[in-house]
């Protein structure tokens, strides 16, 4: 059943990504060139709705297991920068290249092949990373409300208002 849920969730996600037209190289690079913010509009809308929903159902006890990734500052920063370099060259991210292939943009195949090799290479490099980068600035599974020592329901509205102001600015600038 888990596999079926994965497939259904993927179909819905792929469908919505395609509908928002964010699977395209031109849209991804448009965001990185700061001339077309469609992708940020899509992502931040999903994040705000998800943030409210997850916290709400968590409070009700219907979501018991959150999935906070460990904060390892060295790995998050270095890995983040390396990802960004690759993202600018590829023009897709790991998930959207799958979607790009689905709408016929077959240059994504080369990205997928490169990604498989990159994944294999990381598996080989993992013992080294575990001894070095992954130990730099390990703070465990922490969240912003924890660090600020605030109730999440104080942080979420501030985040949401910030996003709405950003959206207004995007629309004013026609980004």
């Amino acid at each position, binding site marked *: 059943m888990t596999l079926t849920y994965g497939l259904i969730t993927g179909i819905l996600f792929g469908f919505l990504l395609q509908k928002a037209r964010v699977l395209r190289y031109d849209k991804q690079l448009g965001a990185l060139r700061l001339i077309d913010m469609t992708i940020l509009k899509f992502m931040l809308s999903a994040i705000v709705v998800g943030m409210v929903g997850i916290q709400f159902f968590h409070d009700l006890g219907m979501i018991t297991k959150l999935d906070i990734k460990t904060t390892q500052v060295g790995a998050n920063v270095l890995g983040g920068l390396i*990802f*960004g*370099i690759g993202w600018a060259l590829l023009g897709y991210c790991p998930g959207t290249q799958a979607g790009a292939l689905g709408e016929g943009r077959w240059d994504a195949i080369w990205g997928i092949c490169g990604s498989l090799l990159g994944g294999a290479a990381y598996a080989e490099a993992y013992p080294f990373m575990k001894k070095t980068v992954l130990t730099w600035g390990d703070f465990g599974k922490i969240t912003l409300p924890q660090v600020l020592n605030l109730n999440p329901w104080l942080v979420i509205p501030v985040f949401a208002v910030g996003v709405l102001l950003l959206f207004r600015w995007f629309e004013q600038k026609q980004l």
Partner: protein
Amino acid sequence: MHSEDKGWSPYLAGALTGVVAVGSVLVADKFLGASTTFATSAGMIEKLFAPGHVEAVDYFKKHIPKIDWQFMFVLGIVAGSFLSAITSKSFKLQGTPDMWARRFGADPGKRGMVAFVGGFIALFGARLAGGCPSGHGLSGVMQLSISGLISVAFFLAGGIAVTSLLYKGGE
């Protein structure tokens, strides 16, 4: 005049994606993420040639190379996108993106080589960071995790820096 079908508002499609993300946690206990699948799929391919080696690799003890929820999720993205594209007549076979072609020429071979290298670097970086724009960007930031917020900031920093070099002074 031919006008490109613009699809749905990114705000609407994004908000619905948020609903899907919450639904997935409620129904299946799964947060969205995609990059691990490329590493575990590489492990599945390696298993065909060197099963002993895969068993010895530490990383594959932590992330078992098998068909799991996330593998099906990534396959689903291909299918969902295809479904949406076909039913809205926006399916288009294209080997060189328009913006790329204007800047670097229409040769799909050149584009393919850079995409391959980019895919390698991106996945390596995502695995080091612990996630990609789905795992860190959507799922991480949704839970206000510090790792997600830091990673996304540096995804954008690295991406914007390299893009400004690639497209410097150009159209």
